[in-house]
């Protein structure tokens, strides 16, 4: 009786020490899962997922708080990649969060811009140039198409325009095969 209790206590002690030691010895800085998820997310920082940016959403997925299907800009591709990473089943995009759209960029009709800087403040990636009382302009290359600048504009001169397809961005489509030999 006593020996059994002693043995158990001893084992508990040993494993406790082992666990304690490994938590220090093999400690991981930050959260690598959140980093990996963040690397997959499209970084539009649009907040459509319900979190204030891609990083917070990545952390929410990592902690199990958010699902993997809340990112409309990433669409199917991101859901698939997240499912692969986390070993989960892919699921369709949550329709409450929005729909997958072709890539867009913001465009400011500069003739009517009043230079209020509200859009500059809204832009999560500092892709709008301008100073108070001077017209603003979007750096199209840096714009992620998050649409966050559209709402704040008091004069409604910001619109989202689809990214034009040109030869350098053209992609070969998946071959269409007539007899239904589709994947």
């Amino acid at each position: 009786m006593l020996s059994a209790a002693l043995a158990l206590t001893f084992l508990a002690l040993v494993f406790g020490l082992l666990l304690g030691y490994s938590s220090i010895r093999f400690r991981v800085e930050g959260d690598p899962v959140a980093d990996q998820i963040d690397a997959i997310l499209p970084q539009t920082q649009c907040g459509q997922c319900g979190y204030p940016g891609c990083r917070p959403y990545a952390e929410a997925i990592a902690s199990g708080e958010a699902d993997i299907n809340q990112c409309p800009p990433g669409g199917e591709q991101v859901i698939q990649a997240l499912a692969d990473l986390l070993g989960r089943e892919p699921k369709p995009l949550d329709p409450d969060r929005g729909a997958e759209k072709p890539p867009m960029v913001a465009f400011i009709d500069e003739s009517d811009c009043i230079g209020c800087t509200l859009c500059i403040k809204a832009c999560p990636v500092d892709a709008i140039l301008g100073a108070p009382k001077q017209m603003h302009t979007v750096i199209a290359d840096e714009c992620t198409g998050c649409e966050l600048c559209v709402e704040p504009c008091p004069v409604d001169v910001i619109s989202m325009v689809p990214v034009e397809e040109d030869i350098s961005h053209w992609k070969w489509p998946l071959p269409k095969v007539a007899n239904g030999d589709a994947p």
Partner: protein
Amino acid sequence: MRLWSFHGGIEVPGHKEISTTRPVEPAPLPKRLILPLSQHLGAPAEPLVAEGEEVLKGQMIASPAGFVSAPLHASSSGKVVAIGEHPVPHPSGLSAPCITIETDGEERWVEREQRDFRQLEPAEIRETVRQAGIVGLGGAGFPAFIKLNPGRTIKTLILNGAECEPYITSDDMLMRERPEQILRGLLIIRRAVQARRCIIAVEDNKPEAERSLRQALGSMKEDADDIEIVTIPARYPAGGEKQLIRVVTGQEVPSGGLPVQVGVVCHNVSTAVAVYRAVELGEPLISRYVTITGGAVAEPRNLEVLIGTPVEELLQLCGTDPGAVQEVIMGGPMMGISLASLGVPLVKTGNCLLAVGRGEIEHPEVMPCIRCGNCAEACPMSLLPQQMYWHARAKDFDRLREYDLFDCIECGCCAYVCPSNIPLVHYYRFAKSEIRARQEQKRKADIARERHELREQRLAREKAERAARHARKRPGPSDESKKAAIQAALERARAGKQGAAQDDV
């Protein structure tokens, strides 16, 4: 000389004799020349002229943008009438920026400087070639000067006269008719790359070309040592750079690397002629030999064509019946581009126009892959096309890279021999462009992430500063005054709009 062989490859009916019966003549000057700013690999050229400007023949009208880029020259004298989007030869059928010149028929040249290449340093030759807008005329259009700048010891310089694709005979005719210019170009390139040994490789189905080259070599008074003309067995794609290097030297270009890494430089015979004309005659690349052939062409032949000539005119010149055309391919049937419109111009890399007659080419029914492995046997890169096909279908891009997708040269052998007629190359092109697009997407996402993080840091810093100021009780612009300023601006704008509206009425 010992020759090696490459894995796979196919025997394809050549159909070359139909376009070699007539001598090459210059095509008449077209009314309009359409010159795409991107006729090469790399960044598109940047226009140097404005609409309405008069240009001379051979005048540079667009300059290279970056290292891997090439300038563009007016193919004839005339007036720039448009700078803008125009359909170009591209599988997408999309338009791209072009400079359109209305020719004046006077063919007034810019000043040309004639030089003896022996007086030139290798660096001067390279710069001349660069300024002449010369790109690899055999295939992909890689700026030629880069391949004149090896930076390593070159053991072998190969001039590629294999021309292994069916139907195309432009290099064949060039070798028959201008062997001296080819040899002259070879000497210039040899000087630029300081090569020891030179080989001109010709497929054994072009005996006239070989004879004419040998004759020209025999009558060369000097410098003829170390130049060898080699016939190689006709087997598609023996003219592919990697395959040709293997056949001639037995060496393999490392995956993802360049021929210079194995001490080889390879140029097309047409490129050699362009180099000769640029260096010794001072003429930039403004014309080339083009094969116009196919079942819908009444008089198949080769023409010397100004770059930028509309394809439609060239087909008409050779008696093409528009009603009999099934499709028009720029390049050969194995690697060419099926044109979406005939208004596109002939570009620097356009060695052939193949006007396919109705029923001449069938697009047979696609059946399921039965993994027969014929494709793997035909692949000149020893890839496993059927495995790549399954992974491309499944969009499993990581596995595709394991199967060395990017070593695929898109020669089309696999699809040619596929008993199920699966468009295999199309699958690889799809996968490659998708992988590249995703890499680009990733790059942009990384930039966005970085900018977002910088902004967050900046906002945090500003907040801290504001808090510090607040603690020191320095009055700043209050929220109310800001709101008032915005309100005032809004009203100004509204007033302005109303004013504009009233003006309209």
